[in-house]
């Protein structure tokens, strides 16, 4: 692994205030709500820094788009720097965290925000190759890193 952090001085933002969703919302259960998805992923810890993806502006509410009719979810994230080698790890964390969160027919696409990464196409291709994602999650080192990012906020 690299000796120094890839991005030693990330810009850290304050956590956005969480809005409680009304309990008597009639559509609370059937719809796949982008804000609900955001709530699930906003606290994932960055692989390199002790901050959440939200705090580092890697993710924001606008990161999630849902097309209910087609059953598609698109998550767009912004790595902290152009040559971030952790981009694929962040993508894996997102997939793993959202794994059992919606009805089976929903398809999830994960991409880096356009222009935010030097190898945008290559990163996007890997993140959306089902076989590559499955194999990566069977790699014990990657698996451990992903687990730390997903569960450290609960410790």
């Amino acid at each position: 692994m690299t000796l120094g952090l890839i991005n030693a001085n990330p810009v850290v933002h304050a956590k956005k205030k969480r809005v409680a969703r009304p309990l008597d919302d009639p559509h609370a259960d059937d719809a796949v709500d982008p804000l609900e998805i955001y709530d699930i992923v906003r606290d994932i810890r960055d692989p390199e820094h002790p901050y959440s993806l939200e705090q580092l502006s890697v993710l924001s509410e606008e990161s999630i788009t849902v097309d209910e009719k087609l059953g598609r979810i698109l998550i767009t994230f912004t790595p902290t720097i152009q040559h971030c080698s952790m981009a694929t790890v962040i993508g894996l964390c997102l997939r793993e965290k959202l794994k059992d969160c919606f009805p089976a027919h929903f398809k999830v696409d994960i991409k880096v925000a356009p222009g935010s990464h030097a190898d945008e196409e290559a990163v996007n291709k890997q993140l959306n190759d089902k076989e590559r994602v499955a194999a990566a999650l069977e790699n014990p080192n990657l698996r451990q890193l992903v687990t730390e990012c997903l569960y450290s906020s609960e410790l």
Partner: protein
Amino acid sequence: MSLVDESFELKELQVLEGHADRVWSVAWKPATGFDGVPAVLASCSGDKTVRVWEQSPSSGSFQCKAVLEETHTRTVRSCAWSPSGKLLATASFDATTAVWEHVGDDYECVSTLEGHENEVKSISWNASGSLLATCGRDKSVWIWEVLPGNEFECVSVLQGHTQDVKMVQWHPNMDILFSCSYDNTIKVWAEDGDDDWHCVQTLAEANNGHTSTVWALSFNATGDKMATCSDDLTLKIWGSDLLTIQSGNGSAPWKHICTLSGYHDRTIFSVHWSREGIIASGAADDAIRLFAEDGDG
């Protein structure tokens, strides 16, 4: 009469439960499913096992006859029966290929092929069962010779793809090997005597090829046409001259015949050309489509 004039319907016969994780691949055992021989199917999974299912002659339903476990330590990605049906080869993300033999009521792992640096993704037996090909994320294609006593010897390691190789498939009649890859190309490999294998053709974007990962390829019964499918959302049909292929001297070049687009709106992972000439495709849009050629081609 053209197949296109008939109406086809896919009817679900049964759902086979047993695997504890995603099922990646299935393979029908050769010479079963007709003439009174019960159909046999192998399936492999992310649960690291392979299951063998057999159809009951009386009820018609498939039952699990064997679970091949405690061998692979990661996802079993694909499986392939040898042409005689005596052996079953399984490819795994654990970087090995296992070869199993039916012994009595069970299956025994009789050989483990090592060599790939990481995930093995596909295996293919040649028509005579004398050669086995494997491929994987290490970008290489390996050719193994099948020797007596279930021994396997690597005769060639083929480099050429610049990315993960997704599938290998031998030509149905000739010892010509085809591979398709995350590098968006299909490569054709042939031998010029004495185990000297090399790439004789690459079908890339410039040859009307795919513009993203090519996931699978399949030949028609006569072996003069091939179908490929891709992450670029298309299926492509390729053709070659049958007589030139069969003459064996020099390789007959493959040319793009047509592209089928607009039928799937997500990655097409699988394509298969049946003996009767129907092409089936399976994609991430949860659809299976069946294609037939109309009279004009």
